[in-house]
């Protein structure tokens, strides 16, 4: 398949996906969990891909994602809360000191940039650390950022540890899809560029990469800053989805969740991260909810054990099974692509043929 048809196919698929979503939105009731899952899934897909860029493609084991999302979410919220509702949001801080708003896209980008700037500063000292030490240091920074944003003295800007709300959010499921889609496309383009190859070289062998003239510090910092930028943007999107945000949401548990998504999808696979984030969100928010119902009957049979909390036990078991039996994740390091599907069918078809042929030989 040549490059052009591939691109055509991909563009076609994306257009078809968006059209389907658009139509579904007209048909299904807007409160449907289906859309909740799609919205949150799209946002998590972006942050998972951004984490994958770091952990999967550059081999930097960072656990700071929640912190960068926090920065993005706060920047977005602080810059977009309408001036007239600031008085009620910043009720303990006389309306706060920021008395202007910027358009939503600008705020999203500002969120990304804030996260990127912090990543740059944090990266200066910590990117010299190796593997687990880097992980724990970035985790630590995320916790520090969280504490700083809860600080009373910053209240006029951050509203202390209280909720930020009343900022613009999205209604249509297309919005997070389009924004996440653009961002993920940018990440994919980066991964396929010469810089992406350099990142992968660093992941495979730092010493060899350095001997090939790749400036480790520079490239690690680039990956870290870019990953954080997109984590920041996804933080802004998450704020839009949640409609209220607060520093205490962005705990290390959130980072672990994202890490689970990345690993279940396959470390080093962008499409894997996307697929697994939808599955993960659907499982945790939607599909398993019926397990929390104490009085579930299948026919006349009263299903035992079911009561609030059972859903989470089952979910954790599903994750354990995934981790133990699908070490490579859903996609491994492969990507889901038109070409791949074509090959898959060709192989299936081809194998059938050889199998038939083989039978006659025996």
């Amino acid at each position: 398949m040549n490059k052009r048809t591939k691109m055509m196919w991909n563009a076609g698929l994306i257009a078809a996906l968006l059209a389907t979503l658009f139509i579904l939105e007209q048909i299904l009731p807007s409160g449907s969990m289906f859309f909740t899952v799609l919205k949150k899934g799209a946002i998590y897909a972006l942050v998972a891909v951004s984490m994958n860029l770091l952990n999967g493609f550059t081999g930097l084991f960072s656990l700071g994602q929640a912190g960068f999302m926090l920065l993005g979410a706060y920047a977005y919220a602080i810059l977009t809360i309408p001036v007239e509702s600031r008085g009620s949001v910043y009720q303990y801080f006389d309306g706060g000191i920021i008395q202007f708003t910027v358009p939503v896209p600008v705020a999203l980008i500002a969120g990304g940039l804030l996260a990127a700037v912090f990543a740059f500063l944090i990266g200066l000292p910590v990117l010299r650390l190796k593997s687990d030490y880097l992980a724990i240091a970035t985790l630590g920074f995320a916790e520090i950022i969280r504490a700083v944003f809860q600080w009373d003295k910053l209240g006029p800007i951050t509203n202390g540890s209280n909720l930020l709300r009343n900022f613009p959010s999205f209604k249509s499921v297309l919005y997070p899809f389009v924004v996440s889609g653009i961002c993920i496309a940018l990440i994919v383009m980066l991964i396929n560029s010469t810089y992406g190859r350099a990142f992968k070289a660093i992941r495979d062998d730092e010493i060899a990469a350095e001997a090939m003239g790749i400036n480790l510090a520079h490239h690690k910092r680039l990956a870290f800053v870019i990953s954080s930028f997109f984590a920041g943007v996804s933080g802004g999107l998450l704020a839009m989805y949640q409609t209220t945000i607060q520093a205490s949401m962005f705990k290390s548990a959130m980072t672990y969740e994202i890490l689970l998504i990345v690993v279940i999808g396959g470390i080093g696979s962008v499409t894997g991260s996307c697929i697994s984030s939808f599955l993960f969100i659907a499982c945790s928010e939607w599909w398993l909810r019926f397990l929390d119902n104490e009085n579930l009957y299948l026919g006349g049979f009263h299903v035992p054990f079911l009561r609030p909390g059972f859903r989470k036990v089952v979910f954790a078991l599903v994750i354990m099974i995934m981790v133990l039996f699908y070490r490579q994740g859903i996609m491994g390091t492969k990507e889901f692509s038109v070409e791949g599907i074509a090959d898959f069918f060709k192989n299936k078809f081809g194998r059938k043929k050889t199998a038939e042929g083989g039978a006659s030989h025996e």
Partner: protein
Amino acid sequence: MKKRVLAMALVAAMAGTMLTGCGGNGGNSSNTGSDAGSAGTEADASAPAADGAKVVKIGVYEPASGDNGAGGKQEVLGMQYANEETPTVEIGGEEYTVQLEIVDNESSNDKGPSAASSLVSAGVSVVLGSYGSGVSIAASDVFKEAGIPAIGVTCTNPQVTEGNTHYFRICFLDPFQGTVLANFANANFSAKKAYILTKLGDDYSTGLGYYFKEAFTGLGGEVIEETFQEGNSDFTSYVTKAKNEGAEVFFAPVSTEAAALIIEQAAAQGLTIPMMAGDTWDSNVILNAAKGKDVQIYVTTFYQEGGNADFDNGFKGYINSNPTATANNGGDDTISAVSAMGYDAYYVALEALKAAGSTDPAAVNEALWKVNYTGVSGSITFDEVNGDAMRDTAYVKCANTESGEWDFVAEQGVN
């Protein structure tokens, strides 16, 4: 090979859940019960539902786990008891069976909205909840977008209803409660110095702490404020600080979970000054923690046991007849104010449904403004601005550390 089989089983299970999930969504039936929903989710609702009577769904958006799990469960108990007492409602001349759709918001501001959307998805007409102000604020927009009215039961932070036409509230507000507490501290303990401990990221805690401070300093008092992070279980240094600074009251409007730890450690360190808190502490968790210890605990709350004998007896009977309910109430039959509030909230919702004459959320929302209901916790009418119940009294109780019960101290208003 084994692995393959396991994997296949897993996939099959996933596929199975997916189908049920889709059914729940597409068929517009309950997502918690899916198909079983019509077969009878709530034990009490099942009989009439089987007769084919029409069903109206009331969403219950309450924490069953996390920091506020204990309180949330007690609040739900009140609603369930009310639902058992009055399982049907007449709407527009037709008999409807009321079905409670209960979701757990996990006391978490980020898990809350998803739980709320699952209620929306289940097609509820009105939502009750939540215990805890933060989660209520967090889910507010989800309900607003879906056009579903919500009745806050014990979320006392002003921000829950402020500027919202869909969020109502049947309890008093923190500015009121904070003032009551400050007045009480000033009048009864002649306290001039208060130690305020609040939890970071908990809007209820920060809010009540703030209003108490405003009121207390307004009375010429002095405050020391400190905060703790979520997940903190070591409160010794806070208690030490309060002692060292010579505070005369220890004010900690926090969740029961943290409260139990604070009481325990305060007792261990011999903190003798009165400890005060708001409505969250009105719980048997606190009584159990304080029992047999040398501490003084004062709380303000919505309802005092003995206020309505019928309700008290009926509710105790309900709790004692059902082991799950007993467990959810913390193992005994102490009546928490939040249960009474949950009970009242349920009836307010029924009143609104009756008045609306329809199960349409928009109509219910409209009708709520005019509801006038006298419940066990007093008369409930909503003001015209924010939809807050007009309340002017709070009950002050004191924990009896010998008997493990609440002693009534005073009924207090602002003036």
